[in-house]
């Protein structure tokens, strides 16, 4: 869907004059462009800041190579490319048809003849790729464009030549778990049979409107891909058996593309004969739409009367407005235009306001946000991390550094994505970069807050896997990074057998030396529910997690110096308590660690014994049976704060667990506390997350002084900057913190 160029888009790239925007993602922008001779192309570009990474440049070059291998029959014909330009670009045929995910959302699940014809044609495309010794590795509905003369496979971002190990592991990072093969999900060889698995998933989506393993958080998806039976509900009965065989966990038992094509379709008729009328209508519309006169370029945002924001060394002026468009346009990474039924005009109303400066408060009595930044973060796995002058936060495709004064993006590092665990000690962000050079081990890096692009390798652990899902950062404190990682060794699909490969490690951040390592007996990222939250307190590392095997919360302590396990304790969890812990929100002080579910527990740091329990015989108001009754606690100045049922905050004496005060209910308000997020404690207020916002409760009057409406569920204090940082799936907002 072409949309106007923005004021900061270039006039030309290479020999191409830009006409309109087709789509934009975190990695780059796709333009409609033309040559001097009038050839119109889709011009994919890569943001210069991403292109500065040589690894990404290699990826982009390989993508152009792979796109050339598949050619114009089964893919988008490549006319020209310059992977070495400052802004690398690739000019391909403008594909006249919707991506399959749009097609299904527009026209509903496809009828069986369409699915069969589509499947057979995709088999042809894949077999051509495989004959050229290339596997796609990222086949998914958004990468399959439906044209009237057959599907075209696009976006070879992670396709690789067989035997070319430069990108082997990147694939695990960037692949879509929903259509990933089990072997890919476990970091093993993704052979042509893996593409067959993904193809069957795509066909299930086409026929039923849902993928074979549903949707949700990547870790959950990975688990289902590896262990669950595919969900074929909605797939015509005559198609289900063959698709089920393609979705076999064992690659050797899946049919080849040739066998599958023969089973799907007898080859009669033309592809378009098998398409339903609404889809034909959409293709027609697109074939004509591209000839509409180009919309005029958008004007630069008007000058505001606010004082100019201080220079921050941000990458490019207008970067923020580009991000605005990005957030509106959806996050497909280098995907061809996929936005729905837009028109030329739709951007006009939004482009002039801009997102800079002070947006209006959402609630009448709430505070004015100090700033707001667009950050797409679908999975919300990590709290924003205040690091002095910067707030570091994960987005869908990068680790971003936002200026704590303005919210402007100061830096971004693209390869550190939400799929990977990171941690911070308040000085820097620590994480690992996927192992491009397979076999070299686990690379741990530090990202300094002042300049995130200046990353520093902390350590390389040659005897551990460097792949995504094979390591999990746990905590950083006192110059030591604590992490769990999977040792190299016999790879097994047996989930329980993998447990013996996992180790808990301590690595000296200065020397890179491994201080100690211990067996854990559990698989770390596991099925996604074993998120652990840890905190270094004194000489101990306290960790709380949700056992994969037991329904309880498990809390444990270990000696920071040796890794020796000091104690562990199971805290009963209510049966319907499905909340998960976000790293960084564990409450502990010098005496106790505090956890909650049905009640609030204080465990002694010294031996793990229960110091006190709060919550028996309390009226927790109107809440779900067998659900959480208390939100995760927070502690400050010897007072423990937690949300109580539907009623509000309680403040407890940290030593004894005695009730100090409870929030005075405001009956004029209809606020419901969130029971899966801890309050944030300031000097003056305690900020209590609500189901649709956050409430500031005065520590003196015990009343809510304001509520601010926001979809955010992640809150963190940047005390030094006087800010309460709130993050939702699209926006990071700074509120005043007192």
């Amino acid at each position, binding site marked *: 869907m072409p949309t106007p160029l923005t004021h900061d888009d270039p006039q030309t790239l290479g*020999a191409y*004059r830009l006409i309109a925007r087709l789509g934009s993602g975190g990695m780059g922008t796709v333009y409609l462009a*033309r*040559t*001097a*001779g*009038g*050839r*119109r*192309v889709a011009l994919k570009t890569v943001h210069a800041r991403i292109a500065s990474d040589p690894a990404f440049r290699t990826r982009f070059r390989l993508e152009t190579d792979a796109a050339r291998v598949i050619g114009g029959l089964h893919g988008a*014909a490549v*006319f020209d490319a310059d992977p070495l330009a400052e802004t690398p670009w690739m000019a391909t*045929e*403008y594909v*006249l*048809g919707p991506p399959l995910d749009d097609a299904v959302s527009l026209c509903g699940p496809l009828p069986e003849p369409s699915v069969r014809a589509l499947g057979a044609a995709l088999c042809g495309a894949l077999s051509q790729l495989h004959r050229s010794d290339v596997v796609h590795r990222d086949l998914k509905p958004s990468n399959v464009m439906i*044209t*009237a*003369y057959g599907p075209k496979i696009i976006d070879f971002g992670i396709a690789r030549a067989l035997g070319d190990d430069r990108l082997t592991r990147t694939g695990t990072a960037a692949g879509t778990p929903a259509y990933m093969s089990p072997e890919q999900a476990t970091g093993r060889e993704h052979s042509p049979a893996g593409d067959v698995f993904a193809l069957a998933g795509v066909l299930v989506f086409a026929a039923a409107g849902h993928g074979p393993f549903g949707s949700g958080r990547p870790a959950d998806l990975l688990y289902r891909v590896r262990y669950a039976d595919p969900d074929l509900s909605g797939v015509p009965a005559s198609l289900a058996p063959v698709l089920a065989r393609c979705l076999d966990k064992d690659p050797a038992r899946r049919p080849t593309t040739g066998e599958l094509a023969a089973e799907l379709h007898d080859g009669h008729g*033309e*592809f*378009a*004969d*098998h*398409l*339903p*009328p*609404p889809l*034909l*209508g959409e*293709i*027609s*519309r*697109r*074939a*004509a739409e*591209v*000839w509409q*006169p180009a919309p005029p370029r958008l004007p630069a945002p008007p000058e505001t009367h606010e004082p100019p924001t201080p220079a921050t060394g941000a990458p490019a002026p207008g970067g923020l407005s580009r991000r605005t468009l990005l957030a509106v346009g959806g996050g497909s990474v280098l995907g061809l235009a996929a936005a729905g039924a837009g028109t030329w005009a739709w951007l006009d109303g939004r482009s002039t306001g801009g997102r800079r400066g002070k947006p209006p408060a959402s609630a009448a009595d709430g505070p004015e946000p100090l700033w707001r930044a667009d950050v797409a973060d679908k999975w919300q796995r990590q709290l924003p991390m205040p690091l002095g002058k910067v707030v570091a936060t994960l987005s869908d495709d990068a680790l971003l550094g936002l200026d704590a004064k303005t919210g402007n993006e100061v830096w971004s590092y693209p390869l550190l994505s939400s799929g990977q665990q990171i941690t911070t000690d308040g000085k820097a962000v620590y994480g690992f970069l996927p192992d491009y050079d397979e076999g070299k081990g686990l690379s741990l890096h530090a990202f300094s807050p002042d300049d995130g692009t200046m990353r520093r390798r902390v350590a390389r652990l040659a005897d551990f896997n460097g792949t995504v899902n094979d390591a999990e950062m746990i905590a950083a404190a006192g110059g030591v990074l604590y992490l769990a990682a999977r040792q190299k060794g016999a790879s097994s699909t047996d989930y329980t057998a993998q447990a013996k490969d996992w180790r808990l490690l301590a690595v000296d951040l200065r020397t890179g030396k491994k201080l100690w390592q211990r067996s854990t007996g559990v698989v770390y990222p596991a099925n996604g529910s074993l998120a652990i939250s840890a905190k270094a307190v004194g000489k101990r590392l306290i960790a709380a997690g949700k056992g994969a095997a037991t329904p309880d919360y498990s809390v444990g302590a270990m000696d920071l110096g040796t890794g020796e396990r000091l104690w562990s304790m199971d805290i009963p969890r209510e049966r319907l308590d499905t909340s998960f812990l976000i790293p960084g929100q564990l409450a502990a002080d010098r005496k106790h660690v505090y956890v909650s579910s049905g009640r609030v527990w204080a465990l002694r740091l010294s031996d793990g014994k229960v110091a006190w329990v709060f919550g028996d015989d309390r009226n927790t108001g109107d809440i779900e049976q067998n659900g959480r009754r208390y939100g995760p606690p927070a502690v400050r100045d010897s007072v423990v704060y937690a949300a109580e049922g539907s009623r509000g905050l309680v403040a407890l004496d940290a030593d004894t667990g005695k009730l100090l005060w409870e929030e005075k209910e405001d009956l004029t308000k209809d606020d419901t506390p969130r029971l899966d997020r801890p309050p944030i404690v300031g000097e003056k207020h305690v900020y209590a997350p609500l189901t649709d916002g956050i409430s500031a409760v005065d520590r003196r009057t015990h009343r809510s002084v304001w509520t601010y409406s926001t979809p955010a569920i992640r809150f963190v204090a940047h005390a030094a900057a006087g800010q309460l940082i709130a993050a939702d799936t699209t926006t990071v907002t700074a509120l005043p913190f007192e």
Partner: protein
Amino acid sequence: MERPRPGNGRRIGPYTLITRLDSAGGSGAPPVPEHRFIARSADGDRTVLVSAPLDGVDPGRFVVEAQAARYLLGPWAAPVTECSGPSPFPWHARPYLPALPLATALAVYGGPLPEHTVRALGAALAETLAIAHAAGTTHAGVSPAAVLLAGDGPRLTCFGAVRAAGPDGEHRGGLPGLDPGSLAPEQASGGRPRPPGDIYGLGAVLSYASTGHTVPDRDELPASLRPLVTACLSRDPAARPQAVRLLEQLAPSAPAPGPGATVLDSPATAPYLPAGWLPGRLVAAVARQSAVVLAAELPVPAHGNH
């Protein structure tokens, strides 16, 4: 459509030709009253459908009709947007829209079009003629060659071909570009083109679309269309139905706007052109044409100022 030929720098007016719109023409193809090309402006920016008169057609008459064709109304009228002045080599142009000439569509489809497609086509053309006739305009060029099929509906082109081919009062039978099967008898004999002549042409178009020729054996026509097409092709102009009546017959389900309805109540697309009105392989051919023209590249002169 011919494949674009790089290096062929032929021009009409300011436009460099990319390819012919009409295929070279088999023996059975209905004649086309003008040369039609897909072409592009020298700066590569605009792509157009450009037309020029056949040899032997009076350039002045061609320009007069082209000028008048700028003011056509209705969603399927495809008005001319640019026109040469008086010239020995006149031309006119309209923005390019991917579309197949009816003859090409039959060749692609492999024979006569399905009845629902013919009815949709007839309804759209009847509406276009009804609009023209209500404005006192006679199209005087309705023939299979004049009908282009785009994805969203047909486009009626070749406005005034009959008037351009020869002046009133002179016998027009056998003139180049005029399809004898589509030319109403009273116009062939030199009569001034009037609305009933357009209806005759429409009958010929529907006959061609559903049988492959403009002069059908009665038995070839689908039963449901037979009375209507036969009435259109009456030798007696007075016996032919009016365009609005045809629209009513071809699109009976089109809901009449209720009292108090305004233009805001009208549907976004014509009710007689539902999704699927055009068979899949014709959609594919239209899309392919669009793709080929998108990818077509004109030779750029060495001194090009791009």
